[in-house]
Every structure is written in C-alpha cells, then in structure tokens.
C-alpha cells in the first residue's frame, strides 16, 4: 500500500476537547487523535489523570513508589496523539477558558462521574450555548440516567454487570473477569459514535449529545448469549475454549512451562491437514473423527491424542507448520511474545516514539492500515505542555494575559 505522510487524515480539521481520565476515555481521545483530530487533553495539576503517576504493581526493578507526572506507563500508552493543557478547573476563570476552547472545537469527550459536568457548569446545554454545533460524548459506568447512573465503575466491573464475566472461564471454574481490554473496546465503540455524529453534522449541521454506558458496551457484544436464554430457557454458562461445533478447538500443552498452542479445525480438509502434520494421516479416516459432528462427539479422545503430540514439541514451530498446512493455529502469547513477533513487526504494529522524560519507547498504534495515509502518531503530552499554543495561538490570548492567568494559578 502506498502512503504519503502528507495525505489527508479522516479527522483532519476536527478539534476535540478531551476531559477524560484513567483508561477508556483517554483511549477514545487517542483514537481520534491518531485519525488526525487535534485533541486537547485538559487536566489540572491538583488532580491530573491519576494514571500519570500510577505504578502498576511491585516491579521487577527497584523504582520509586510514585513516578513523575510524565512517566506513568498506564497514562502514556493510551494518550498518544494529543496536546496537553493544565488548568484550574475549580475557579470560574478556568471554566471560562474551557468554554472558550469549546467555542472553537467540534467535539468534547468526558468521563467524570454523573453530575460533575453540570456542577462545573459544562453540561450539554451550557456547551451548546457557546457552540450550537458541538458534539458532547459523556461516558460513564452505567449511563447518564437511571437508578444506577451514579455508580462508580472500572472495566472489570462493567464486564461483570454487562454479562461478559459470567460466560468466561472453565466450565467447572469460577467466572473470569476481563480488565483493561474492556475499556479499550468501549473506547472504540465511543469513537465510532463520535465519528458517526461528525458525519451526521456534515450532513445536517446538527451537533448532539451522546450518552455512553460502559456496561451496555459489554452487553452489545454478546447479543446471541441473551437470545440463547430467551430461545432455550437455559442460562448460558462457561465453555472454556470450546466451540459448539468445531473440534479440535482448544489450547494444547507444549514443551516448556505454561506454553500452549491454540488449534481450531472447522472442515474435514483442515482436519486431514492437521493429521498429516502430526504424521498420523490415518486419523482423518478414523470413523471417530471423520466428520465435524463425529469429532465433536469424540472431542475428549481427540484432545488427548493431540495433546500427546504437542506435549514435547515447540509451540511456535507447530504454529508455523500448521499455518503453512492450512490449519488455524496460534500460540497463546503474552505481551512479551508479541514484541518479538516478526509478523507484527513487519506490519508496523509497534511504533517507536521519543519522549523527553522516559526516552524512546515502543507503542501500539492504530489497529488498521489505510491506503493513502498514515495515522498521526505522536508521543503522549507532558502535563501542561501545550498551554502556550492552546491559550495563545488558539484562543488568541496575549502574552500579558497568559502571564496574568499563570500568575493567578488559572493556567497551571
């Protein structure tokens, strides 16, 4: 695919005021930024995005318990391609500056607890008064209205309430909650809604308010599970790695400690190819395994035979051999494995970006390729890094005014 860096990006010319924090909201803003929007992340020094300093767990290397505000991995990985400003968000003059920013912007995204935006005087009605075409997306755990609108939430809790946790895990084990990936999934859905609203605005001139519920984001991705209960009267449970029709369809133990190979076979041809790679071509003619229905019926026997073959073999080698033979197979990777994957490297999944405080780091960029343009990938902003550009160039405040606002602690 030919691509010129200078070509137009989908969201060129769109300006976004990003008042989100933690994980789901920031990644939504980052997606819009990678697509070309000018995203301005608004923080305050008294209460910056708490992932800026967040140390995840006890670490392999001795590190300080608290990091500087620009060093946090949890912040940096989901805040690519944004500008950063720091403002006092309690004092009226700070709120006034946000309104001036909104007046020259297209989209506002926020994920504060229900009611806080209104208390700040920045709810949809207030924003519409300064910019009738504005698109506001408010993202919350359970939606902006209803009996549980005020409930706090993080990804794992949304996964539980939305119905994803109950159906995840081994059939005889406890339910398995997902973590940050749920936030990033919801960020993708939120970004889709924002782009749709931008498209709608191009057609009609209308802005709008988008009320996003993180729990509903989980439920929307398991529609057939809810239909299952209604259609059969049974509550769908946990199925491990198994599939209702395909066998083999599992993870198989490989040589080494906790190393696994995923194999999924749909057709008889694929099964014959697997049998050939295993050097047991006779399996394809074994009546226990000759058809998909027979394989599913005799899945336990089949899993035992395959496990016996995989047990003392190398995971990555088998994945290659099976892939070449036309069988869907992949190692169960961890994040470290991903970094070394030549395929992902060849596709430019990882992008190195320099950073004045942490040095160069690899980041995961936009999860697709577009012909004719490259995503805008920029390192995450330092706290308050773009105050002068945003308040000076963008809002047109003169130097004396900016100095006064800094002096009085409005611009931080």
């Amino acid at each position, binding site marked *: 695919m030919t691509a010129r860096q200078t070509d137009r990006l989908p969201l060129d010319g769109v300006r976004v005021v990003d008042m989100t924090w933690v994980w789901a909201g920031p990644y939504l803003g980052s997606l819009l930024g990678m697509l070309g929007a000018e995203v301005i992340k608004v923080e305050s020094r008294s209460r910056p995005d708490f992932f800026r300093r967040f140390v995840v767990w006890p670490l392999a290397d001795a590190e300080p318990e608290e990091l500087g505000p620009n060093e946090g991995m949890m912040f940096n990985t989901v805040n690519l391609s944004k500008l950063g400003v720091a403002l006092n968000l309690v004092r009226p003059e700070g709120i006034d500056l946000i309104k001036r920013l909104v007046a020259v912007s297209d989209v506002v995204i926020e994920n504060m607890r229900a009611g806080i935006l209104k208390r700040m005087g920045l709810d949809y009605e207030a924003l519409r008064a300064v910019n009738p075409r504005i698109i506001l997306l408010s993202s919350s755990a359970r939606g902006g209205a209803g009996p549980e609108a005020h409930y706090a939430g993080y990804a794992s809790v949304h996964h539980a309430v939305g119905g994803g946790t109950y159906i995840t895990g081994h059939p005889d084990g406890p339910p398995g909650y997902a973590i940050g990936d749920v936030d990033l999934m919801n960020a993708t859905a939120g970004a889709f809604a924002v*782009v749709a609203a931008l498209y709608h605005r191009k057609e009609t001139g209308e802005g*709008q308010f988008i009320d996003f519920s993180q729990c509903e984001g989980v439920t929307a991705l398991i529609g057939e*599970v*809810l*239909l299952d209960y209604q259609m059969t009267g049974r509550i769908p449970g946990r199925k491990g790695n198994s599939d209702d029709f395909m066998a083999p369809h599992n993870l198989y133990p490989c040589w080494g400690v906790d190393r696994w190979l995923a194999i999924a076979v749909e057709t008889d041809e694929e099964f014959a190819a697997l049998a050939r790679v295993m050097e047991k071509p006779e399996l394809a003619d074994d009546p226990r395994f000759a058809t998909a229905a027979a394989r599913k019926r005799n899945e336990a026997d089949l899993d035992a035979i395959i496990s016996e073959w995989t047990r003392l073999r190398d995971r990555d080698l088998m994945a290659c051999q099976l892939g070449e033979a036309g069988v869907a197979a992949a190692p169960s990777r961890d994040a470290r494995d991903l970094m070394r994957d030549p395929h992902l490297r060849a596709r430019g999944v990882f992008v190195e970006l320099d950073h004045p405080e942490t040095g160069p780091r690899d980041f995961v960029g936009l999860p697709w390729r577009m012909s004719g343009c490259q995503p805008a990938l920029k390192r995450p902003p330092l706290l308050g890094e773009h105050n002068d550009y945003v308040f000076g160039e963008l809002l047109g405040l003169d130097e004396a005014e900016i100095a006064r606002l800094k002096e009085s602690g409005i611009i931080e």
Partner: protein
Amino acid sequence: MTRGAFEGVKVVEYATMVSGPYCGKLLADMGADVVKVEEPPDGDPARRRGPFPGDEPHPERSGLFLYLNTSKRGITLDPEQPSGREALQRLVKWADVLIDNHPLERLESLGFGWETLRQETPRLIYTSITPYGRTGPRAGRKGTDLTAYHGGALGSLLPPRSTDISRPPVKAGGYPTGYHAGLTAGLATASALLARRATGRGQLIDLSEQESIVALVRGFVGAVIYHRLTWSRVPDRPPSLGRMQCSDGYVVSYLVEDHHWRGLVELMGNPEWAAGEEWNSFPYRVGNLFKIGYKIDAWALQQKAEEFHHQGAAKGFAIGTAYNAEQVLNYRQYASRGFFVDVDHPEAGKYRYPGWPYQMSASPPRVGCPAPLLGQHSGEVFRDVLGYTADEYRRLGESGALGEGVAS
C-alpha cells in the same frame, strides 16, 4: 423525525459470521442501506450456529444471525457464476462501501482485487477484514476467533487469578474477536466515509482480526516495555480484590483510591485486622493485601451478591454482580434506559435484542427491520437498486446465480 447518521450511505456486505456482519450492523442500525450478499444454497454460516428456539436448528432462526444482521437487506448471489459475478460487480459500483471478511484471495480470484476496485471504483471504501491482515509473513494464513484471541495475547490474562497452570488460558465467552474486529472495522469505515466527503476518494482498510486484539493489550505491552513486567493469569500480583465469591454468586470489584478501600472496610464493619492507618495507602495495600485477602474472602462468602453490589456502590466503590443472561435481561438500569429493543422476526418470532451503548440525541440508532430471510430482498435489490429489467432478473434467476429454484 430524526435520521440515522449514515442515512444515504450504500454498503455491500460480502461477509459471514461475526466480524464483517457486525461492522455492517453498526452502519445499518445508523441508517446505512446495507445489502448483505449471501452465497447459495445455505447463506451465511451464522444461520447454522444458533442458538435456536427450542434447540431446533432452522436457518431463519439462528440467534447469532438474527442479532448480527438487523436493519439489512439480504440477497443471494453465487459469484462463481459469470452472471453472479457481473451482478456483484454492478452492486459494488453502486456502493460506497464494500465489507469483506473472506480469505485474502477470494475477491482477487473473482476479479475484484483492490487494484481493480481502486481503478474502476475510485470512490469505493473497501473494508477488508482478514485474520492476519493483507501483508506480512502470516498474511493469508487461516485464523479463527480462538486463534486470534490467544495469538493476540488477550487469552493469557484469563481466567484471572488461576492457581493451577496445568489448565490452559481461556478466551472470553462468545465471539470476542469477531465482535471487536467488527467494531474496529466500523470505526475505520466510518472514518473513511468522513474522509471521503473531503477528498472524494475511497480507500482500502486493511484490518487484521489479530491486531484488533493486540490493540487491546497495549497496556500490557507497555508494562513489558516500561517495567519488564509481564501480566498473566496467575495471581502473582496483589489482588485489588477482583472477583469475590458470595453465598449466591460472584461479585467483581476494583479498589484503587483510598476512599474506595475505606468504603469496603466500613461495609465489613471495621474489623480490627483492617483498622490500621497504614492500609490507607495504595502502595501499602499493593504490597500487603495478600495477607488479609483470605479474611475479606471469608467475609464476602457470607454476603448475598446483589446486596454486596448495591451496598458497595452506595459506599462509593466500584463493584458489580457477575450477572448471567437472565439477570442482564432483567437489569433495572437497562430497563430504565430502554437499552433493549424488541424485534419481531417473521420466522423466528419476537425477542429482546441488546441495543446500543451510545444514546445519540440527534441521530439515534434503531433497528430498521429484522434480519433478512435468505434471499428476501433479491428481487427489489436487483430491480430497484441495480436497474435489472424483469427479463434480465429472470435470466439471472434461471442461470442459477441466485441459487437453486430462485427465479422471479
């Protein structure tokens, strides 16, 4: 009267199962005119996946198909037949967007490679969804929901807090890869539509299902790069409580801030073992929660999940019951927001479908019509959309390109 955001956008969906069809549904529920192309005789394999009412398989009653194909028109077409290929060509010329999740070589072999499409239909957005993408050493390899999920490293985190590593990681329930790839494709396609308004040009979107999963583990990649720390499913990290078993189910909680922690301690009745001031520090809890985790678990086991859930929420910390399908369908918050949509399908009957996590004030999504019957709209699409005369359409039917026994 509101209008859908993508009203007027014309989409051809040549896609099966979950990823491509979910992308098509996202656009269709927002008003796009999506024509789903299914191959005779059986159509989309999702029709055979179920769940089925009363467990009786029927191609028009598969829950997976019904949910993923709302608001679309459906036609049958065999692109292996010359007349079918010509029809597909006319359809693609009509369309703004082509969604395809067939193997890489499929469209190429039919004469619809990207180079051809780009030259003949420069305004076309071609959303190509493949297991590994269109380039790189694994391009063209087979992949499924299972292999992309584990190959993309998301499975290594599940089930969380596994103590027995002789049991494998698992994938999330349902079709997590297909849905997320479809969602990502929806965002990519919507962006390309916006770009096209400015440039007048279409584009190729090369979307790898595995990469859509890799994008979700960017934080775990960050942990490796920043801290040499590899997350996994084993409980070698202190719990921020995560999952707790109650007397009648499970809750999941996540405590970060100090006031969250104090809320839980209050709820437990301020036990002596959690009373010390030192617990009011996140780093301290991270290092020491293991020591008292079993006491918290013992307390939780005496609680009822729903009571714990709502009392905890009242204390201001993040907690929720691990709801099953029945509980989700009866969840009061969803009912009050009108999240579910009742859809009446002529063959399958009336069921409650999930709506959309985004409520949009000016362009609300909606289910325009239930999922199409196999070939339901062939006549109207060929005649009204593609301008086939009655005669041409009859000949197309007779050629077998619409499937056996299908003729006007």
